[in-house]
């Protein structure tokens, strides 16, 4: 360092090495913790979005423009199976499935319950939804199967039916005729979501179309992207291929599940509350260190002022020392945090009970932090700014110093 001032600032830091290391250590700890936590948060959001979307709604759905707000039987898409196949070919993406949906009264020989009956393409549904994997009793719908049904565990309990039992359903068809059928229970699923387990049932799409007089229509084409980052690109391609937007619109996951984004924002807010507490604690540690340092050097500062330095020069020196300490904490904190996070982003980690829950609900059994330039720098940069802000008070105190009084200080 050519600058004497820089050398002085650096050496001043190590006059009380233990104190400086304690403060830098607090910065390293908080910075690495922030790098890990924010990366984990970003990673868990990706996982949370994926888990939520793959359960049922997929990343994108093609629907009638009015269907999202009013999911009525009459808002249909024509030739839904053929159109789904056309989309698979155009997008070169297999995970696209057609669905139809209606409400019906399901009855066993003992009880009746209102249900949402879903007609699904049994071949492609497992590619867009984890539902087929949630069947824990019996099996999922077979390809080409006609008179089969898969129901939720609570519904099965309420209707007092098991595998092999028959159910009848009665609903209203597209042409407002009676829609009725008799199906055999081939599978019982448990999603862990009580509303679904209580009121959801799936049958083959062809059988649904026949029963509800849908002809070849359906209500939605569900698309699951390979990665959430692909959604925007897929949306653009799909939108460009739509000839008549008054009959069909693509909806991305934000529109399909607005609560998901809000849940993420709520989680982010509460997490940042904790982060801010951590940042404030580090800032107070810096404030304490620099205040002590300034008070201990009052006599020295008095000498410097007598030699012709202005309070602004001294304040700059204190800020420079803080900047060096902060840079050290930033560098080491990010490095340590990045190493830990990078390792865990490869091997993943789980907490007790996570694996059992994952098996039960057909979810990933490990969490993976998502390391990115933003997750590496966001927290530590705020810690650095907080630390520099905390050093302003000790630096401003120097403005009150008078050289004579300062030089008399013990």
């Amino acid at each position, binding site marked *: 360092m050519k600058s*004497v*001032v820089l050398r002085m600032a650096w050496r001043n830091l190590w006059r009380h090495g233990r104190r400086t290391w304690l403060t830098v250590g607090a910065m390293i700890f908080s910075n690495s913790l922030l790098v890990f936590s924010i990366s984990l948060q970003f990673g868990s959001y990706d996982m949370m979005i994926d888990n939520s979307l793959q359960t049922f709604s997929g990343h994108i759905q093609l629907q009638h423009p009015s269907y999202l707000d009013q999911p009525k039987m009459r808002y249909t898409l024509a030739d839904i199976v053929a159109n789904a196949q056309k989309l698979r070919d155009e997008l070169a993406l297999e995970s696209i499935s057609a669905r139809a949906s209606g409400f019906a009264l399901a009855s066993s020989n003992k009880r009746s319950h209102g249900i949402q009956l879903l007609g699904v393409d049994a071949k492609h549904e497992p590619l867009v939804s984890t539902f087929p994997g949630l069947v824990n009793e019996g099996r999922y719908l077979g390809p080409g199967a006609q008179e089969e049904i898969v129901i939720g565990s609570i519904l099965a309990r309420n209707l007092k039916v098991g595998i092999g039992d028959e159910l009848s359903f009665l609903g209203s068809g597209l042409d407002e005729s009676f829609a009725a059928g008799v199906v055999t229970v081939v599978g019982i699923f448990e999603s862990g979501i009580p509303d679904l387990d209580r009121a959801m049932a799936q049958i083959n799409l062809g059988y649904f179309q026949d029963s509800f007089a849908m002809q070849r229509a359906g209500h939605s084409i569900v698309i699951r992207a390979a990665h959430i980052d692909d959604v925007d690109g897929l949306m653009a391609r799909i939108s460009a291929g739509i000839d008549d937007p008054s009959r069909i619109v693509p909806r991305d996951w934000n529109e399909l599940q607005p609560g998901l984004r809000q849940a993420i924002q709520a989680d982010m807010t509460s997490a940042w509350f904790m982060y801010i507490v951590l940042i404030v604690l580090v800032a107070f540690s810096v404030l304490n260190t620099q205040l002590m340092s300034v008070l201990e050097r009052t006599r020295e500062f008095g000498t410097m002022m007598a030699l012709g330095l202005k309070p602004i020069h001294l304040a700059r020196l204190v800020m420079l020392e803080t900047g060096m300490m902060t840079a050290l904490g930033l560098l080491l904190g990010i490095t340590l945090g990045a190493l830990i996070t990078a390792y865990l982003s490869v091997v993943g980690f789980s907490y007790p009970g996570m694996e059992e829950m994952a098996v039960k609900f057909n979810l990933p059994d490990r969490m993976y932090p998502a390391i990115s330039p933003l997750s590496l720098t966001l927290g530590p940069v705020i810690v650095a700014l907080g630390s520099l802000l905390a050093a302003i008070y000790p630096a401003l105190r120097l403005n009150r110093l008078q050289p004579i009084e300062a030089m008399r200080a013990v």
Partner: protein
Amino acid sequence: MSAIHCHQLCKTFHQGDEIITGLDHVDITIETGEFVCLSGPSGSGKTTLLNAIGGLDTPDSGEIRMGDLRIDQLKRGALADMRLHHIGFVFQAYNLIPVLSARENVEFVMQVQGVATAERARKANAILAEVGLQGLEDRRPAQLSGGQQQRVAVARAIVSQPDLVLADEPTANLDSVAAAHLMGLFASLNENHGATFVIATHDKRVMAYARRLVKMQDGKIISDEAQ
């Protein structure tokens, strides 16, 4: 700016309910290149006068001029600039910056003055050699004797060739050999660099070097004689 002119300088201090007179209507003029000793017992006002001349303390009333500049009317920033560019200080306790080496202590003020790096190093080495510290440039104050530290302080005070060097009891912490060496150095710098020296002391060894001796008592000048 060359001479110092003080006119009717007054300064009082409050110690509890007691009012202590630091300077009592002091009039003094110091010409360029003079080597002046302010002497007197403790509390006589010599340090107060030195601090007022150096702009470290403001008088209650009266005038201090350095050339055409009214020091007593300068604001804080302007006073700092004046000290930085025109005055060198030597303190009783050396007051070196402990984390800097001898060379760096000398360079430090020059850096604040805006002197270029190479020029700083050249001047610092030259002045340290002149005060007899060649070979000790990289030592920190704690690795130097009291006399050596005071010589670093002198080098720091005069390296920028200030118009005025103010020294407050510079030999108080030195043995007689070191004190004699320091005073010889002051005398030679006064002659070679033409700097004006004003030294506050009650050390008779120092007074022997003065060409003008100003005696003070109770904040007043009681005698002012050329030697």
